[in-house]
């Protein structure tokens, strides 16, 4: 267990108020759109209204007549520079500006640049593009039909099939299912949705012709990786590129990929020798940048009559849109989807996934999620409820029966992962107690007698976060380590720089708390910097809850290097041998003589003034941490809903969330992360949907129809926690950002289905809109 430091030091476990807030609450944040440079000009993207069409011609003359017009860049221009296509983050390529044809509505076709933002928008209307419509493919189930149009002419294989991937014991699972007395099956679609951070994507690209240095202010969750990719794609020497990721207005995975707009702005700046700003509109953000999910899944569970699970078989169709732009660094095409056995002790399992192209926006990004763990958690938690329903067993009881027992960790799951730690029953029991589960079931029974509809939904999810390890995860070959550099100033104050990038997670507050914990330097004496590739050590960025598991570990390790050197200096100052020294946060003292001590501040000063013979000056360290394994946070969520039979509306009456993310750095921030993640889960379960009509028109491509909950739709969250430290993490932490978003959708859906289960309802696809519930009630003759 972590030793508690004093409030003055403010190490781990203290609810320290956030340092970053000072600027945000005064409107002094510095987001990309706030960057204003002398001579800056503005870009605006011309987009295709068609989902699938051949480009016949592009006429720019009228556009160039707009006062202030500077340039119109087309795919042909980029092709001439070899930049018409760029690599995606997952073994595919994507068009920067369309050449030949367009493959989805809102695809980038041309880039207008003008001296004023308004003029650039006017130009975009006047670029005349002639299209020849082609048959549109929007249904992934039809992508492999013989008569389906082939979308990707650039590929060798004349097929819309991207990949087939399978893992596990196919035959053993098959046999187990055939021989099993009970099998439960669910067909579930995890709908296409979008992270929609409140700040859209954008950049300011500033190429200085004199120094040939390219500086890019970028809405980037991974500035270093982006610098390397810009260098590889653009052929610009990496030392001449500086990516600055300033304040980011939320990311949730949306700001991991590199988007065509960025590349166009860079090209325009190279061409014009002026800073070029490009900021997405909201419609552009929802219609063209990384969508998430769109997994069409089937799960079958084989079990004994007493509910003991025997095997799990999962088959999934993955709709990646026009390009496989999945922003995921694992070696597996479906990322971490094979965590789909969840919290349960399945002897056998088999999982297969096929990816296909459609005329939809490219992506498959991890929306507050570790690369498909959300889809996996949703599927298994839905399937367990279907099994419980089939066995007429209480869903809590069924889960308790099948949990991986806490003494079985580290646990080797049948699909290859080694769970580091867990105590699922403890989290579940606390949640049941907080909810008053038995009373709720009684209330439900009474309500049913009166014909009222109330439901209780449970989700006991397992997470898998903290990518690396480097042997399994990389971006463009770069292993998924992360980094921290700490410098202690002579006065004992410090600056730390990391390879991650906060988008609201509060790194400026939490990482200094780790250093305070390790070195005893008060957290307010430590400044933290991120997001400037010219100053921060190389890192892979912030997403998939990896900052604490990876960069957090790097921070602790760097601090420990400093402590080791400090010990030598302290021994020198106290004229004893290192072995004679004991450490407590803030000082070394002579064993048995606590008064004979040197504070870390005194030691820091000595590091520049009074060193042992032959020791180099200074007190700093950098550490690159490649985790030995992922971490496995978990929890149990319980949702209580009431349904209005007349309108089909679902009211979330209560939601209890018990999370276990190991040792906690700042409980206030962890709680805030959980509130936010649950609210995004609520939105996914009931509101968020990006769909396409048969003509390829995107539906839900703006905030009028892409529904985000307001304070009114959002319930009051009840949170609790258990603590099972990660055995392999230097400070026993696990990461928490995505847990509530991964674990909650199943709880909401399970609650609604539970309310209707006595009518024989076993599944409803998300988002659960009132009309869906109403239709079911009418079918069942309930009015």
């Amino acid at each position, binding site marked *: 267990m972590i030793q508690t430091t004093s409030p003055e030091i403010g190490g781990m476990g203290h609810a320290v*108020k956030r340092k970053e807030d000072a600027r945000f609450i005064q*409107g*002094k*944040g510095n987001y990309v759109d706030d960057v204003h440079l002398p001579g800056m000009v503005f870009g605006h993207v011309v987009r295709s209204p068609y989902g699938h069409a051949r480009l016949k011609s592009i006429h720019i003359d009228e556009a160039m007549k707009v006062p202030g017009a500077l340039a119109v860049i087309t795919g042909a221009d980029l092709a001439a520079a070899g930049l018409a296509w760029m690599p995606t983050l997952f073994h595919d390529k994507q068009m920067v500006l369309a050449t030949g044809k367009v493959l989805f509505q809102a695809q980038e076709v041309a880039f207008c640049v003008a001296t004023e933002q308004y003029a650039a928008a006017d130009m975009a209307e006047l670029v005349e593009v002639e299209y020849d419509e082609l048959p549109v493919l929007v249904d992934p189930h039809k992508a492999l039909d013989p008569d389906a149009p082939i979308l990707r002419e650039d590929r060798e294989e004349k097929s819309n099939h991207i990949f087939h991937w399978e893992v596990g014991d196919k035959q053993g699972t098959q046999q187990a299912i055939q021989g099993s007395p009970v099998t439960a099956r669910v067909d579930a679609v995890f709908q296409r949705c979008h992270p929609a*951070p*409140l700040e859209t994507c954008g950049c300011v690209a500033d190429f200085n012709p004199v120094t040939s240095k390219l500086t890019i202010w970028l809405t980037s969750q991974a500035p270093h990786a982006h610098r390397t990719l810009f260098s590889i794609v653009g052929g610009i020497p990496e030392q001449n590129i500086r990516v600055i990721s300033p304040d980011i207005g939320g990311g949730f995975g949306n700001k991991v990929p590199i988007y065509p707009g960025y590349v166009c702005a860079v090209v325009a700046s190279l061409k014009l020798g002026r800073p070029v700003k490009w900021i997405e509109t909201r419609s552009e953000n929802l219609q063209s940048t990384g969508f998430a999910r769109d997994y069409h899944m089937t799960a079958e569970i084989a079990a004994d009559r007493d509910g003991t699970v025997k095997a799990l078989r999962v088959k999934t169709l993955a709709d990646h849109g026009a390009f496989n732009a999945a922003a995921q660094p694992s070696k597996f095409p479906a990322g971490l989807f094979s965590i789909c056995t969840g919290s349960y002790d399945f002897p056998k399992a088999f999982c297969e996934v096929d990816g296909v192209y459609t005329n939809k926006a490219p992506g498959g990004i991890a929306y507050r999620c570790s690369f498909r763990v959300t889809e996996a958690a949703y599927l298994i938690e839905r399937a367990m409820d279907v099994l419980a329903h089939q066995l007429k067993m209480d869903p809590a009881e069924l889960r308790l029966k099948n949990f991986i027992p806490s003494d079985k960790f580290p646990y080797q799951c049948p699909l290859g992962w080694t769970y580091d730690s867990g105590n699922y029953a403890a989290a579940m029991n606390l949640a049941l107690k907080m909810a008053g589960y038995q009373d709720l079931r009684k209330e439900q029974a009474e309500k049913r007698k009166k014909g009222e509809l109330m439901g209780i939904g449970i989700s006991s999810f397992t997470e898998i976060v903290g990518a690396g390890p480097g042997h399994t995860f990389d971006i463009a070959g770069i292993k998924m380590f992360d980094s921290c550099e700490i410098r202690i100033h002579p006065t004992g104050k410090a600056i730390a720089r990391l390879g991650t990038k906060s988008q609201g997670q509060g790194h400026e507050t939490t990482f200094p708390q780790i250093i305070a914990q390790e070195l005893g330097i008060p957290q307010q004496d430590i400044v933290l910097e991120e997001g400037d590739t010219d100053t921060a050590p190389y890192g892979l960025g912030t997403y998939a809850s990896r900052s604490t598991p990876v960069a957090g570990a790097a921070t602790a390790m760097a601090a420990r290097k400093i402590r080791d050197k400090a010990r030598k200096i302290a021994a020198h100052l106290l004229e004893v041998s290192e072995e004679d020294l004991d450490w407590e946060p803030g000082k070394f003292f002579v064993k048995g003589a606590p008064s004979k001590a040197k504070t870390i501040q005194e030691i820091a000063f000595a590091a520049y003034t009074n060193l042992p013979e032959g020791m180099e000056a200074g007190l700093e360290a950098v550490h690159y941490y490649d985790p030995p394994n992922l971490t496995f946070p978990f929890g149990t969520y319980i949702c209580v809903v009431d349904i209005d039979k007349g309108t089909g509306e679902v009211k979330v009456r209560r939601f209890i969330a018990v999370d276990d993310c190991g040792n906690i750095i700042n409980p206030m921030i962890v709680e805030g992360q959980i*509130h936010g993640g649950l609210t995004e889960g609520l939105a996914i379960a009931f509101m968020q949907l990006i769909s396409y009509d048969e003509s390829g028109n995107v539906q839900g491509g703006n905030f009028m129809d892409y529904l985000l909950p*307001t*304070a009114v739709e959002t319930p009051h*969250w009840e949170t609790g926690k258990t603590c099972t430290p990660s055995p392999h993490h230097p400070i026993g932490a696990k990461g928490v950002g995505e847990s509530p978003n991964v674990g909650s959708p199943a709880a909401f859906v399970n609650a609604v289905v539970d309310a209707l289960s006595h009518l024989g309802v076993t599944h409803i696809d998300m988002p659960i809109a009132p009309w869906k519930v109403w239709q079911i009630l009418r079918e069942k003759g309930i009015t």
Partner: protein
Amino acid sequence: MAEKHHIRVRLNGVDKEADVEPRLLLVHFIRDVAGQTGTHLGCDTTNCGACTVLLDGRPIKSCTFFAVQADGREIMTVEGLIHDGKLHPIQEGFRQEHGLQCGFCTPGMMMSALALLEKNPEPTEEEIRWGISGNLCRCTGYQNIVKAVQYAAAKMHEGVLV
């Protein structure tokens, strides 16, 4: 190019004059002409509320109002909250109760909350949720924003500042 109009707007207590195109949106006047970038833009369809400012004391969405309409009127933005170097209780509340994460919605959110408290100094939780229902937040789940507003209500009640 339409005829420009000369406007004078009282922005956070200071007169700001400019010749503007009629189509210039107030939010762009505030951000680009007056250079006060605390007011943000989050959508195209008047949904998100990130651009919320006070027009003669009432919250409006400055992305759906032309600068020329603001001629001769008073605009208050997040930059106008601080008073003699002292934070407004609503600002304190957001920090104390962890009412913000990425900070992008925060300025607009605070302006709506402030307007609510001036109309209704002791709002219930439900009234607070309705009062900020024109502002979207993607990070906090609103729970701590509600607490922040309650904190500010109590503070303002004590007559601390204002």
